[in-house]
């Protein structure tokens, strides 16, 4: 149950981090009051959530950020590059902290000193002078809200929802401020007694400071807690009067309508019931860390899509009863029912696939920040234009595609786009543009990363390849352009003569290519000298279900993904020739090497005396290879299943699928086989 609570926290926290990044970048380009407010809200909500969960470092850092932001809001200081950078730095650290929580269930000690100092420095005295000198970019006119009165509730939206829910149920919400006597020795013990007494009445939803801090005696003489209960104020006072060493107890009713909360659109889809349920586990949260397991992957699904699924499932149930009712062997009814069933299963398949689809926005959102950082590092001026962020892709692909894309963007920024001086000399606009575009094309999604930089220096690539002995001089003469480009995708290749932080370490495009291929996609490169380079990534819409050709090898069945098949041919044995000890055939003027699957897969050899050889011609990039099989079974739609962790690295096998008769057939990994 704690886990569930933590999942919600993580999900929301990540969204706020994303928001912070997004709005901070907007603030830099286009400062306005609303954006500052947005940032403030996100930071504030994050602070509240962290406090509730007892994550002190997160709390401290967001608190400092809030102070700085408050000063910006109240126009005490203006926005400049340094402030934005400091805040971005903070967001990075927040992200790391949240990542730690996700991995281990608790915060890891991180050094906050430096950025805290930076934050304080800017919000403090030394900064104010500077403010007058540099013109404030932000026009802010809003009075600072007074704080720290008992009527003002430092609640986030999360907690507010719980309170509203409670009020709807006719419960009281009390804010209780407990002050201990000055000479109180066992402060946490007294606090514990207060908690214990109150817990019998209802649920404590929030404490200030956090439960952890109270347990660790990290508070002065007073603490505040929010209690949801059916009991009256008097009952509470009476219950607490039995605890000694209490100096004062203030009980105030909380009206949800008066709560000033950080209003953020995240989390709205959350089920309020879930929040209330999480109340139950509230007290144990701080202990959750001990028996923590890595959080599960979650996915937000449009309720409409789920409804659709539900409908289809109820249709399945109807058809089940219909099947049960077929008593005699009425062929007509039977066939109709099976047809009906077929229609439902294919609709069901569609619906489930749709439920797994996520807009690529989730990945693209990180990139403005990446480009911002890159342009600083490289002292180049770069604009990022994003198109088609609403294009949807399978969740699995979304999770994997981020890193390759970052790599391509870095590449474009580092190798593609020229320095501002160089650009002006060439008569180009000072600002370079990186274009990120996604769109659907049939059963594929295309993602393009293009820049308007200098293009690819083919001679440079070739020179590098010669230098590293990748190609010989004779070979080099005959290489076509696309072959030279493909050299860039080989392991350890880098055109950059100097190694920068950003790229050029030689672990680059080959990794991108491998990753994309492992997702069942492909990548193409085009460029025009001095006009720019485009990397086009083609990805399948979903990984779960593919069209495949079933073949037999020995007595076994294997599936070959249709997407990598060019054609199938049957050749007479005497057409097979041997070149450099490898078997090849000539097909329409092309030499195609042959791989005998029964040898590669160690299956039994069937009749050697056959006259013909059945070949499945598969492609890997520009290369064609013929796979010799014993028989073709037919084309089939198959569901890809993983072999699991235990058999993770089996050569040649990409996965398995279950055939109609319940048998398991393995799917060949063409990239490894060829």
């Amino acid at each position, binding site marked *: 149950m704690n886990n569930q609570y933590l999942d919600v926290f993580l999900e929301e926290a990540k969204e706020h981090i994303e928001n912070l990044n997004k709005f901070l970048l907007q603030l830099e380009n286009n400062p306005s009051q609303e954006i500052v407010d947005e940032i403030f809200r996100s930071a504030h909500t994050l602070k509240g959530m962290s406090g509730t969960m007892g994550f002190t470092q997160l709390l401290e850092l967001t608190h400092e950020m809030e102070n700085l932001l408050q000063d910006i809001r109240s126009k005490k200081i203006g926005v400049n590059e340094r402030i934005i950078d400091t805040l971005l730095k903070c967001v990075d650290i927040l992200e790391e902290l949240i990542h730690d929580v996700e991995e281990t269930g608790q915060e890891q000690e991180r050094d906050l000193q430096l950025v805290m100092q930076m934050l304080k420095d800017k919000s403090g005295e030394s900064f104010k002078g500077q403010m007058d000198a540099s013109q404030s970019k932000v026009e802010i006119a809003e009075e600072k809200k007074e704080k720290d009165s008992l009527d003002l509730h430092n609640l986030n939206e999360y907690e507010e929802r719980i309170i509203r829910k409670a009020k709807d149920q006719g419960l009281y919400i009390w804010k209780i401020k407990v002050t201990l006597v000055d000479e109180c020795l066992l402060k946490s013990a007294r606090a514990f007694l207060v908690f214990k007494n109150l817990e019998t009445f209802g649920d404590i939803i929030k404490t200030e400071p956090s439960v952890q801090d109270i347990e660790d005696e990290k508070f002065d003489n007073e603490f505040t807690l929010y209690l949801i209960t059916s009991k009256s104020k008097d009952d509470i006072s009476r219950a607490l009067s039995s605890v000694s060493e209490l100096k004062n107890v203030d009980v105030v009713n909380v009206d949800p309508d008066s709560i000033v909360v950080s209003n953020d659109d995240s989390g709205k889809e959350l089920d309020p019931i879930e929040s209330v349920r999480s109340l139950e586990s509230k007290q144990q949260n701080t202990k959750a860390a001990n028996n923590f397991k890595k959080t599960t992957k979650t996915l937000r699904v449009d309720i409409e899509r789920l409804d659709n699924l539900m409908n289809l499932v109820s249709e399945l149930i109807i058809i089940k009863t219909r099947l049960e009712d077929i008593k005699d062997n009425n062929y007509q009814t039977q066939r109709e029912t099976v047809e009906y069933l077929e229609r439902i299963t294919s609709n069901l398949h569609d619906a489930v696939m749709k439920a797994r689809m996520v807009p690529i926005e989730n990945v693209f959102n990180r990139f403005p920040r990446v480009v911002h950082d890159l342009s600083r590092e490289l002292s180049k001026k770069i604009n990022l234009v994003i198109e088609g962020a609403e294009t949807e892709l399978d969740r699995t692909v979304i999770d994997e595609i981020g890193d390759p894309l970052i790599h391509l963007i870095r590449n474009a920024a580092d190798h593609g786009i020229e320095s501002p001086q160089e650009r002006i000399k060439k008569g180009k606009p000072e600002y370079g543009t990186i274009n990120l575009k996604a769109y659907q094309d049939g059963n594929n999604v295309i993602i393009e990363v293009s820049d308007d930089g200098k293009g690819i220096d083919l001679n440079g690539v070739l020179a590098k390849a010669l230098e590293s002995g990748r190609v010989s001089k004779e070979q080099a003469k005959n290489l076509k352009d696309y072959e030279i480009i493909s050299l860039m995708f080989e392991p350890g290749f880098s055109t950059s003569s100097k190694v920068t932080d950003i790229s050029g370490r030689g672990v680059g495009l080959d990794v991108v290519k491998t990753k994309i291929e492992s997702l069942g996609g492909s990548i193409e490169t085009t460029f025009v000298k001095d006009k720019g380079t485009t990397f086009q990534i083609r990805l399948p819409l979903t990984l779960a279900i593919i069209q495949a050709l079933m073949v037999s090898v020995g007595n*076994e069945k294997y599936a070959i993904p249709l997407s990598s098949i060019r054609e199938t041919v049957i050749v007479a044995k005497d057409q097979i020739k041997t070149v450099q000890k490898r078997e090849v055939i000539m097909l329409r003027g092309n030499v195609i090497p042959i791989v005998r699957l029964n040898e590669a897969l160690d299956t039994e050899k069937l009749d050697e005396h056959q006259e013909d050889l059945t070949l499945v011609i598969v492609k890997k990039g520009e290369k064609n290879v013929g796979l010799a099989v014993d028989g073709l079974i037919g084309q089939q739609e198959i569901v890809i*299943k993983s072999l*699991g*962790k235990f058999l*993770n690295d089996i050569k040649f*096998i990409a996965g398995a699928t279950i055939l109609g008769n*319940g048998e398991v057939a393995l799917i060949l990994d063409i990239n490894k086989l060829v």
Partner: protein
Amino acid sequence: MADNIRQFVEFKLGQEEYGIDILQVKTIERMMPITRVPKAPKFVEGVINLRGEIVPVIDLRKRFDLPAAETTENTRIIIVSVDDITVGMIVDSATEVVQLSQEAIEPAPPITSSIDSDYLDGVGKLEGKLLILLNVEKLLKPQEIDELAQI
């Protein structure tokens, strides 16, 4: 049940009786068609379709270098699950579930059985017989498998 009582699924390999902690056992299945996986380690018999899930199956006899045995009526596949890894293990027969108190479990002496004591959790004493307790985690550890695959 008292805290120090553990339950074990008892099974046979040849003449010897073994036990696996019941908490690691998902189900016990009868023998079913197994699809061979090429290039897999020798003791990996293949994969099965366990109600829609692909589960690798290892032959425990091969895993411990015991002589191969015929599949019989009694042959079973014990499906075990440790961390995220689910694997089926072919055994000669699965007999019963036994309870052992912590006191009845002793560390495995170096030479107890035909298998390497690295894979043992200990030996359980039952009336009239000894139960060799397998450490499934060690048995399934990936690096172990890699090493074995290279030999």
